[in-house]
Every structure is written in structure tokens, then in C-alpha cells.
């Protein structure tokens, strides 16, 4: 019955059963924001656990990467679902921000913030930076088109793509590592407010749990940051050895600069 009602004008309070569709109501959008945020968070958490397997050695991480690719169509289903929620999250994030700016057209001459955290006030900016980073990250390690060396890597002993060496070669550049660390830092900053906000948007907080959930969000964000930053930091600190096969020789470096498609080395033998 509600759906047959004509939209009420601004000055008339709506009587009884009136409603806007869930997806355009303020709370509906926030709920979708929170839900798409959790899905993205689930991915980020899983990704971090995957990354950390690099510390278990070349064999472990390559096998893990291989098992993901062995899912075949499955991996595409997962990618499409994640992409859907990610795009929804970004779309709603931008829409909410635009509406919020409209709702506050004039600010204060004397601008003051009593309680709102810096992370809560910068969600859109940390968000956009994460997006830029994601695009670079996918070109870098998934499509592998930003670094010609990745395509020249030899297969590992078991004949799998050598993710282990790729990650180490990639993070040997302090510039790239620095950008990754900065970006995951901002992602975790986003989450330090986002995770609390998610509970609140879904109506899962109460007076007595709200403080604890704030702390929980900060703690999880910190753990994620340490987990993500550990890999580039370990590479920069030379704590993750390249397998012998991938240590570039003078000769290999020459061929690299001439962009020869030859493999750097055919000699095998991974170092654990």
C-alpha cells in the first residue's frame, strides 16, 4: 500500500505507512555502506593472512597462490562478487559525501571539532587513496604490467608461477615499498573509523559497548597494518632471501635493459 502513495512534498509530514525505498533512505544507504565495507574488510583480512605465508617460504606462498588460481571459474566468481561490493561501496561513499556537503552548505567562521576523530573526517580522502592504490596494485602484481621482470621469472621447482620471487623483486624498490606501506597505512586508518562505524550503522552498538567497539576497531586496524607492512619491511631489511635462480647476474641485468624476452636464468634451486 505504501508504494501507491504519491511522494509527499517537503512541507507535509507524511502520514503513517509512508516510506522511501530502502536503498535511497539515509539509513538504508548506511546499512549498504556498512555491508559492502564488511565484505571488503573480509577480503582485506584474508589477503593479509595470504600475504603472511611468504614468511613460511617460497614453497608455501607459491602453493597458496597456485591453489587460488586452481579454483578456475571459482576465482572469477569471487572476484566479481568482491568487485560488485567494492564498486557499490565507492559509489555510495561518493553519493553520501555529496549529499552531506549539500546538507551543510554554509560552515562556521570559527571552525571547531570537539569529538569527531581525524579518521572519521577523512573517510572519503583515505577511500579515494585506497582506490588509486588498488588500481596500481592490480596492475603491479595481478596483471603484472608495470614491471617487465615479472614476466621473465622462471617457474618454481614445482612448475608454478613464482609469486615469492615476484614479491621480493617488487618490494626491493624503496619507492614502491614506501608507497605500499603508506597506502596500507591509510587503508587501516580508514578502517580504524570504518569498523566502529559499521557496527553503529548496523545498529549493533549500545551505550555500554560503544567504547569497547572503538578500541576493537583501532586494534584490528593496527594488526592489519602490521600484517601488511611486514612483507615490504622484511624485503627492504633483506630478511626474505631471493632464490638463487632469481638473483640477477650482470649478464641478466644487461638483457633486462634491452628488454629481451629471454628468461633471466634457467638454473633452478630455490632457497628456503
Amino acid at each position, binding site marked *: 500500500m*505504501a508504494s501507491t502513495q504519491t511522494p509527499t512534498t517537503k512541507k507535509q509530514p*507524511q502520514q503513517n505507512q*509512508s516510506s522511501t525505498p530502502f536503498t535511497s533512505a539515509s539509513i538504508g544507504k548506511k546499512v549498504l555502506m556498512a555491508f559492502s565495507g564488511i565484505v571488503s574488510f573480509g577480503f582485506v583480512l584474508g589477503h593479509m593472512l595470504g600475504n603472511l605465508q611468504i614468511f613460511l617460504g617460497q614453497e608455501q606462498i607459491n602453493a597458496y597462490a597456485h591453489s587460488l588460481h586452481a579454483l578456475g571459474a571459482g576465482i572469477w566468481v569471487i572476484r566479481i562478487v568482491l568487485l560488485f561490493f567494492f564498486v557499490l561501496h565507492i559509489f555510495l561513499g561518493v553519493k553520501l559525501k555529496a549529499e552531506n556537503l549539500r546538507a551543510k552548505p554554509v560552515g562556521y567562521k570559527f571552525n571547531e571539532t570537539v*569529538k569527531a576523530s581525524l579518521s572519521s573526517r577523512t573517510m572519503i580522502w583515505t577511500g579515494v587513496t585506497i582506490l588509486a592504490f588498488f588500481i596500481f596494485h592490480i596492475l603491479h602484481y595481478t596483471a603484472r604490467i608495470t614491471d617487465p621482470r615479472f614476466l621473465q621469472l622462471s617457474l618454481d621447482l614445482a612448475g608454478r608461477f613464482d609469486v615469492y620471487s615476484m614479491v621480493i623483486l617488487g618490494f626491493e624498490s624503496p619507492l614502491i615499498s614506501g608507497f605500499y606501506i603508506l597506502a596500507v597505512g591509510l587503508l587501516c586508518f580508514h578502517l580504524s573509523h570504518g569498523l566502529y*562505524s559499521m557496527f*553503529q550503522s548496523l*545498529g549493533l*552498538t*549500545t551505550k555500554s559497548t*560503544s567504547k569497547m567497539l572503538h578500541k576493537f576497531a583501532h586494534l584490528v586496524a593496527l594488526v592489519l597494518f602490521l600484517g601488511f607492512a611486514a612483507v615490504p619491511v622484511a624485503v627492504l631489511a633483506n630478511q626474505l632471501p631471493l632464490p638463487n635462480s632469481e638473483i640477477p647476474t650482470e649478464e641478466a641485468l644487461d638483457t633486462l635493459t634491452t628488454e629481451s624476452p629471454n628468461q633471466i636464468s634457467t638454473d633452478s634451486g630455490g632457497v628456503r
Partner: protein
Amino acid sequence: MLDIVNEELAKTDIEPIHFDHDCREGICGMCSLVINGVPHGPQAATTACQLHMRSFKDGDAIYIEPFRARAFPVIKDTIVDRSAFDRIMQAGGFVSVNTGGTPDANAIAIPKTASESAMDSAACIGCGACVAACKNGSAMLFVGAKVSQFADLPQGQPEKTARAKAMVAQMDTEGFGNCSNYSECEAVCPKDIKVSVIAKMNREYLSATVKTLS
């Protein structure tokens, strides 16, 4: 303080500064000044009318601005039109009582915890400081308090589904922003309403949406 300024202004031919007030004892919610960037000024849980000049030091500059939000158009100087709140209340902030004999007091048993939490929400005086403080001009603390005060009590149950939907719809129609969970509203609320009422409203709205799916 503004009275003294205005008395002085009255002696000259400059028009006095317009500002809203009524009770001056912190219970009506009429006063609406943003003092040094903070609605109702620097003292927590206090309305502007109850803020004493002793909160400032001699020689301090004080900035006074009106509440700012699209849904609260400025009428003159620091007076803003807060009738959007009234329309939200008309949309669902009531309990319908059919006429008949006066019901016995205390005929409906209400748990102490429920009446306490309803009372905490009902402490909201509808001043609109939450909207003024919110960087998004969102009214969720106000609407959250009003939805919660009824949702906690047995008398509020029959209309709870329609209420949550209608009040939220009216809030959106009025052009208030969305909540980003800054908690800035909670910090300035003169009646110390907590953002947990927003979570409660979200629950009410979600369950109302699910109930009306069919």
C-alpha cells in the same frame, strides 16, 4: 551577555541582535547559539542560556554564529527556522490514544530499566544542536532519541513500525544529511543524549523494513 549588548545597542540607532530564547533555564530548547564554533558553547551538557560568562576569561573574543544546516534556514541574525523538527514529530513522534475513560495510572507494568532508558532519550529538548554540530547537518541524534523514547516503552509498540519508517522518511525529505558516525552531536548535546540512540533507531528502521517487506 547578548541582553547587555542589546541594551547598549538600543541606546544607539543600531538594530539589536536577534537571538532565540525562552525559558532561560535549560529546559525548553529555544536558545540556539554557536559559540566559538560549538553549539551551546564550550561547557558540556549545558544549553547556551545556562552557560555563564565565567566560562570565558576577561578579554576573550567570542564568536557567535547561528546554527548552520540546509534544513535550518536562517531567519535573522542567529535565529533559524527549526520547524523541520516539528514536521518530523508530526510524522510519527506520537502515541495515538483513542478517547474513552481515563486509564488507571500504572495499569501497564514497565520495567525500571525500560523507563530509565526511555527517560534518557526523552530528555532531548529538540534544540537542534546535534544538527548544528554535525559536519553533515544530520538530524539522526534527534530522530534517534525520539524513536527510542517510544520504542523502549510498551505504549510505543503498536505504532513502532510505521513510526520508524515515517520519521526517517520525513527526516530525509527535510534535507538533513546522513550520519557518518562522527559522534560530534553527542559531544555538544546539552542533554547528554548518546549516539547509542542512533544505533537503536537503525535497528528499529531495519526491523520495520523487514516487517513491511511482505
